[in-house]
């Protein structure tokens, strides 16, 4: 028997090995997701070697590409810089368009809310002096505008047109000292006249006995024939009363930021 084994040692070993391999393989087929101890050990051993090889390959590749092979780098750099500038410029324009779209959507919503026909306009210039508060809009007689038409934005009253030429008009802002409009306090319905004072407004002719509080909203009363009723003018920011005075002294902060006017709405059909 021993002689037989010795005689066929090699073929037997081959068969045993194949059988073992098949057994191991068939047993592993049933437990496929598990990692064997052998596999773990091999992976553990291989890991530092792989990492080391990988990082040294990276280092060599970086060295070659960034320090030695620089034939097109400068040209590529220039191209990327110019592309970057172009893209930044495009991004700026897009964000400006987005903001403009937002403003115009608000204006459109206001236009749809109003019962009166309106005309949108763009502010193209400001007053030439520091004394008067006026702006120029890009619509004029040719667009059906004329002196006296009220101008508004979603936040409230802007002012009224005082000069009109073919393609542009001058709008007297509510904050100008020569501007005056009939208003009422929304909460208590107290009446008065709002006059411009440069940056703020004053509520004139508000009787001392009238109920006016800080923060009250001031709206147009519809009297005077220029502004329709109910447009926001501003909020009461300061009240000074004196028992001896007939009227109280009221300062109103305008609802509109006049230094940032861009698009406005002109009310064509005046319907107070």
């Amino acid at each position, binding site marked *: 028997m021993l002689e037989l084994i010795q005689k066929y040692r090699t073929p037997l070993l081959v068969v045993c090995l194949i059988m073992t391999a098949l057994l191991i393989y068939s047993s592993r087929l049933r437990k496929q997701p598990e990692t064997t101890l052998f596999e773990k050990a091999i992976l553990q051993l291989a890991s530092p070697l792989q990492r080391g090889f990988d990082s040294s390959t990276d280092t060599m590749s970086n060295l070659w590409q960034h320090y030695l092979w620089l034939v097109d780098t400068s040209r590529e750099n220039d191209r990327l810089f110019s592309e970057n500038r172009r893209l930044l410029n495009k991004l700026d324009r897009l964000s400006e368009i987005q903001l403009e779209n937002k403003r115009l959507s608000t204006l459109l919503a206001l236009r749809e809310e109003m019962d009166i026909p309106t005309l949108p306009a763009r502010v193209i210039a400001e007053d030439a002096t520091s004394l*008067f508060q006026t702006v120029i809009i890009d619509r004029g007689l040719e667009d059906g505008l004329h002196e006296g038409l009220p101008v508004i934005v979603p936040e409230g009253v802007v002012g009224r047109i005082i000069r009109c030429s073919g393609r542009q008009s001058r709008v007297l802002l509510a904050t100008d000292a020569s501007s005056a409009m009939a208003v009422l306090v929304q909460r208590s319905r107290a009446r008065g006249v709002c006059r411009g004072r440069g940056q703020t407004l004053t509520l004139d002719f508000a009787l001392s006995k009238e109920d006016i509080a800080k923060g009250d909203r001031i709206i147009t009363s519809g009297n005077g024939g220029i502004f329709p009723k109910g447009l926001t003018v501003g909020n009461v920011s300061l009240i000074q009363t004196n028992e001896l005075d007939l009227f109280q002294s009221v300062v109103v902060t305008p609802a509109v930021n006049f230094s940032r006017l861009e698009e406005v709405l002109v009310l064509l059909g005046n319907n107070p």
Partner: protein
Amino acid sequence: MRALFVYLSLGLMFAVTETLVPSAMFVKPNLLLLLVLTLGLREKVILGGPLSWLLGGLQDALSGASLGLFGLVYLILYLTVRSIAGPLNSESPILLLFLVFSSTLLQGLILIFTLGFLAEHGTYWRQVLTVIPGQLLVNLLAGLLFLQCSSMLSRYRRHR
């Protein structure tokens, strides 16, 4: 005729420039005032008088003022400067700065009286007084810039 055209073109350019300065700046430089002062120092009444009124008209047309307000103010300023210009050295840069300073104050005073007596808007005087300190500073800076530009221009003309 050429002087009239040059002054009016410059005036129009200055007035339009003023409308482009954002109102958020609180005070705007009064560039036309510099031209009126130059007129007062250099030009005779026959040209300077109507020109200063026209420059004021330009300012009125591009601002919320009634036509004629700045025309009157600039004409008074021109005549005042013209009346004292004889013994003065019109080439002196300090003189122009002094004139800018004093004419800004005088302009404020004339505006208060004109608006107070002739117009019915009663509260402009408060705004004029509020604006004057800033207006003085900005006008002086504009005057300095104007001097720099005019000296550069005269150097260039001498070279040619």
